[in-house]
């Protein structure tokens, strides 16, 4: 079946502009995660959606970052007034939330954001 998809693949923007990044999770996966991967670094957790529960926003670095998940499926990560330090690859992942699945997260190909 189809995996996690993300769009756009690459995004170049000017400092101060707003950007929206999209994630389509695997159908049936109730959990959705956003991570940020800066150059040469590991993945940094941003936000986690689980079903209809309130999202876990504990990883968002500032109030310029927000995300929503509509209808329990597609998610959009929005960065307002982008800064150069926001340049990174933004990865989305989805998973089932059953112990039988071992909570394996399936990742999308990421969006590379460059802020000039």
């Amino acid at each position: 079946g189809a995996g996690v998809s993300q769009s756009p693949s690459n995004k170049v923007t000017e400092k101060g502009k707003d950007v929206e990044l999209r994630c389509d999770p695997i159908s049936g996966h109730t959990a959705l995660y956003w991570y940020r991967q800066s150059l040469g670094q590991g993945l940094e957790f941003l936000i986690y959606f689980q079903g209809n529960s309130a999202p876990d926003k504990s990883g968002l670095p500032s109030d310029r970052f927000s995300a929503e998940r509509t209808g329990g499926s597609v998610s959009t990560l929005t960065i307002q007034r982008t800064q150069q330090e926001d340049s990174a690859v933004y990865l989305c992942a989805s998973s089932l939330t059953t112990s039988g699945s071992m909570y394996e997260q399936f990742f999308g190909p990421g969006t590379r954001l460059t802020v000039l």
Partner: protein
Amino acid sequence: AQTVTQSQPEMSVQEAETVTLSCTYDTSESDYYLFWYKQPPSRQMILVIRQEAYKQQNATENRFSVNFQKAAKSFSLKISDSQLGDAAMYFCAYRSLRGSQGNLIFGKGTKLSVKP
């Protein structure tokens, strides 16, 4: 808070040889999951192997195996009969089973080169 440490930023192995990538973690929890992910230049994160903390038996997936030492909080990855396609970034990751903490906590990665 849990942390994951990969002390080898880069490793190199000769094709057909064996290489071991190190990972240590810090947690006060007794039950959790551990993962190794591979990230080739395409950016796509691919699950290599996973381990449930309550299982003493080390996980194995074809040429990939782990040495899980729970008391030492160590989770190393062994790649046997290395192939050119194994060249990638490898990330060790931890998942708590506590509460709503569904995200993975990643190490900073080890870049593996395979020499022909």
